[in-house]
């Protein structure tokens, strides 16, 4: 498993639009991709799982990728988070 931490810097947190971008990216990979924050967690391939976390500006998250392409998945998730959130 590959994991990294990230702090949400988008003023509006993870709402529909950025959640859509994350799901699109996550869906390209075979690995299971999970975002955890506090006691909440979401499957990044499912938009309402992600939107339901209601992540806000300043929230600290951990992204975990697990599977045959976890290295690539982790890099791609980091890139999309840094560029859009």
């Amino acid at each position: 498993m590959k994991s990294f931490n990230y702090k949400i810097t988008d003023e509006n947190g993870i709402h529909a639009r950025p959640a859509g971008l994350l799901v699109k990216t996550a869906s390209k990979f075979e690995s299971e991709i999970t975002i955890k924050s506090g006691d909440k967690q979401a499957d990044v391939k499912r938009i309402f799982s992600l939107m339901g976390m209601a992540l806000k500006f300043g929230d600290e998250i951990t992204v975990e990728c697990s599977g045959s392409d976890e290295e690539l998945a982790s890099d791609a998730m980091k890139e999309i988070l840094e560029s859009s959130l």
Partner: protein
Amino acid sequence: MFGFGKKNREPSQTAEKENSTHSIYAVQSGKVCEIASLPDVVFAKKIIGDGYAIKPYSGEAFSPVSGTVIDVQENKHAYGILSDDGVEILVHIGINTVSLKGKGFKSAVRKGQRIKKGELLAEFDIKLLKNNKLPTEVIVLITSMDKIENLKINYADATAKESAVMTYELKEKK
């Protein structure tokens, strides 16, 4: 995906022919437009899913299907519904409306409740959106497109609660 962007057949014709055809109704009264024409690439490029947008005449959004409310965004501008046939739908009111932080929006539902087609989902202040130079289109997207085939969209004037704007068939389970 053939036939997108072209004038599609009336959904009622296909409904008679194919009893496995499902419908998603008008969330609003207004002109149905293509999401490809929306001024936001995430919607226009169908990154979240495929669907329709309606330029609204009034500040009410009605549930396009019967199902369960699976998400109410804190800023009350976006709603998730799991339809009774297992399709996930996002109703997004306006574009960049998250920035209003809930101002001008009133939710009529709570997460986890049942909702019937045509029941009030939310109210919103069209004038406030316009004053903030935000697009007012109400966007209805199928986010679980992997379950869908033969999606047809009727680009015409729609009547809230009554017009079947989209029809589709469910893919056979493998």
